[in-house]
């Protein structure tokens, strides 16, 4: 399945958002997530299915002004 992750198209096996984070080694990190521009809470990631073409954003803390 092809998923857009942070703007890049990746071929992944995960069927859920939580699975995607595990597959891409984000699982233990401080990240926030959105699917198709909608926020997905941490507690909802394992029940958020992914489908072909979904756009996932995985964001972390960063410097800001």
């Amino acid at each position, binding site marked *: 399945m092809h998923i857009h992750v*942070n*703007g890049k198209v990746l071929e992944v096996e995960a069927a859920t958002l939580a699975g995607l*984070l595990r597959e*891409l*080694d*984000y699982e233990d*990190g*401080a*990240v*926030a*997530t*959105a699917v198709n*521009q*909608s*926020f997905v*809470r*941490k507690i909802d990631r394992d029940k958020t299915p992914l489908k072909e073409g979904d756009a996932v*954003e*995985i*964001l*972390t*803390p*960063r*410097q*800001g*002004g």
Partner: protein
Amino acid sequence: MEAALGEDRLFLYGAEFRSRLLAGTAQYPSPAILSRAIKAAKAEIVTVSLRRESGGSRTGERFFTLIRELGARVLPNTAGCRTVREAVTTAQMARELFDTSWIKLEVIGEEDTLQPDVFGLVEAASILVRDGFQVFPYTTEDLVAAEKLLGAGCEVLMPWGSPIGCGRGLNNPYALKSLRAHFPDVPLIIDAGIGAPSHVAAAMEMGFDAVLLNTAIAKAGDPVGMAGAFALAVEAGRAGYRAELMQARDMAAPSTPVIGRAFSERARA
């Protein structure tokens, strides 16, 4: 009236602060200099953002650890968002990641000036306030936009001094003074465009409650030294405001007593 700075406090959404300088955390030469500069600025509130990162790199976590060690309150932003949807989603992600309902709301409407889209800003602020956020909207000096942001539930406004990162200071002092006069009881924070400590002193002398700056410190030759200079300017400007400035006049008025001046007509008579 004595300007007792020790009793002077800034209140934002019920939280109390001594410092009136909010500092950004971007563009510093190193994390160590960032840390020292924030301390030299005496900032109690720092702005942060959210950005993409590759899995496993943990850069964001290291940064967040550094910020937590500073002990400052975190104000996440929605920097770079161009639509209401982007800003709202980013704010929701920031709330979970940083564990705060505070959000510096940016909805950018124009690329060259990074001018806020005040229409999108009001819409996004309305959505976020209903969702329990405490919104710090990055706005212009426009009075009507300010009214609508307050109507949407914002309790703080952050008008720009001039475009982000330009260092031009207060581009429109007349409008900023009008804004201050129009909303005497609303915390107003000058955000963006500050280039020099004198800009900050001028803003504080006008009666603005605080300033938010980043580039002017981070891009200085000596960021730590400049942070200290800005801290002094904020204190000086605030103390000047509280001590009540004299009224400017168009013509000269001698400060030394005129009566008793030697060689005057009266003395000769």
